[in-house]
């Protein structure tokens, strides 16, 4: 039995089956991912059993690198199988100024043993973005840095004057234009177009090029340049069960560990600067995976030195 399970041919067959499954999943499968299906788990278990049986069969005569390489793999696979039982992961949506201890995983809500208040969400740009007006007529294209007061003339003698620029266009209930946030989330430019004696004021949006309500013998659009985001971060205050308060900043690649949980900066809403999405995890089996990585890499080092 052990001989059959430890067979190299079984290893080759399992590799071929897994490879086929990966190709199917990534190139053809339009339904639920196969990775959560029982047969895929059986495939993973069979691979682990094959590696384990092979290692045990050759344990007495095997070299250190052989044992470490195979033991590392078994520990990594064990860590992967332990994840559903040891791992908690949920999303924590937050709004500026509000605290929440309710995390959501799918349709289920979980109450965390602490609450998180979003003090501030910030976007950091590499450089100050700027808007450009693009004028297209008679097959030619001209670009201009959009500045308030700038006046352009078209070939037909019409004039276009820049009246106002906004980073994040918003309207109040009374119809007044306001900046919704200090970020360049919905940039817009208001221009006054003069054709003969007729004058018309229009807004042009970078995110919605066709939204202006005008029909002209030329093309006019507004685009944002240099708006590459360097980082985004949430400044939070965490209140523990005993009332203890911790202030911290959570950014991409800089998660926060608190009370056995880890909080990650996951996303934000480009249309709402007051919103931030964090991911909360707790993984008591992660050490098993990392131990597997270390054992495997130790085996790789010895294998190369051989």
């Amino acid at each position, binding site marked *: 039995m052990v001989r059959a399970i430890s067979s*190299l041919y079984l*290893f*080759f067959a399992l*590799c*071929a089956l*897994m*490879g086929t499954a*990966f*190709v199917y*999943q*990534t*190139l053809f499968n339009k339904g639920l*991912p196969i*990775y959560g299906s029982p047969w895929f788990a059986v495939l993973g278990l069979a691979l682990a059993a094959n590696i384990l049986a092979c290692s045990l069969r050759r344990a007495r005569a095997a070299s250190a690198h052989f044992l470490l390489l195979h033991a590392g793999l078994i520990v990594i696979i064990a860590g*992967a199988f332990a994840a559903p039982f040891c791992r908690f*992961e949920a999303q924590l949506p937050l709004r500026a100024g509000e605290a929440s201890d309710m995390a959501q995983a799918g349709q289920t809500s979980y109450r965390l043993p602490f609450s998180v208040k979003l003090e501030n969400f910030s976007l950091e740009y*590499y450089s100050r973005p700027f808007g450009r007006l693009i004028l297209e007529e008679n097959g030619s294209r001209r670009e201009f840095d959009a500045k308030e007061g700038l006046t352009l003339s078209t070939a037909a003698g019409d004039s276009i004057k820049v009246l106002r620029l906004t980073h994040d266009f918003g309207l109040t209930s009374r119809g007044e234009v306001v900046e919704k946030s200090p970020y360049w989330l919905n940039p817009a430019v208001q221009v006054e177009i003069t054709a003969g004696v007729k004058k018309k004021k229009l807004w042009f949006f970078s995110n919605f090029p066709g939204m202006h309500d005008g029909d002209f013998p030329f093309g006019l659009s507004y685009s944002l340049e240099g708006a*590459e*985001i*360097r*980082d*985004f971060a949430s400044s939070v205050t965490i209140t523990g069960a005993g009332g203890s308060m911790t202030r911290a900043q959570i*950014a*991409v*690649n800089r*998660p926060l560990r608190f009370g056995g949980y*880890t909080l*990650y900066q*996951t996303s934000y809403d480009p249309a709402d600067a007051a919103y931030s999405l964090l*991911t909360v*995890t707790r993984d008591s089996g*992660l050490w098993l*995976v*990392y131990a597997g*990585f270390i054992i*495997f*890499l130790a085996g*790789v080092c010895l*294998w*190369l030195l051989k």
Partner: protein
Amino acid sequence: MAAQMILINTAFFFSLAGLLAFSAAYVFEKPGLTAAAGWALGAAWLALTAGLGAMWAASGHPPLSTQYESLLTLLWFVFPLSFYFRRRTARPEIAPAAAITACLLFGAAALLDRTARPLMPALRSNWLIVHVLSSMAAYAAFALAAAAAGWTLAKQRAEASDDFLLRLTKTGFAFLSLGIITGSVWAETAWGSWWSWDPKETWSLLTWLAYAAALHLRKKGLRGHKFAILLAVCFALVLFTYFGVNFLLSGMHSYG
């Protein structure tokens, strides 16, 4: 930008000169040209190193974030790996294999978007350096192994090169393992999950399994031209993982 392009084009020119010199040495049976070809590859590596350095200085971050930048980094590894294995194994086919690989990869790089972009937030981590460098070193070793396998098959010397091909494959496999593991640790730090079945992750694992199977098959007795053919087949998976996944499948690695 102009200085970088001049240096990278110079590296391509020297690689091409090296390949032509190797070809001439083989066709006209003039071994003296082989030494000149080796010097040309050395010059190509120096020019590429300077070009990558200029790119780093201009962008302010290591040139590892776009596919163009990572491909040049992959190319950078081709040269020292070939010099090292030439010295350690004394196998003559490694140098022409490096010249072929370099010319093909420079050609592929010319087709890619060269626009330098600032690092997106997810890539602003020191893990970028260790993850991408180890992955590109692995791909370079596999590319060299495939090119050397092709060269030995063409010259019908696959039996003699078997051990050398194994060494290259082992090197690539070790670096690929390191690349996958460092990627997992980075993913845990950035996204909170060490494995997400992202298409790039999945295809990297598939490639890893293919090379693991190839190494076990060799242990089982597969040698010579069969092992060389197997390495060429496995390298097709590397190509899909590196290029195909980026162009055909969307995922968390779409940027590079």
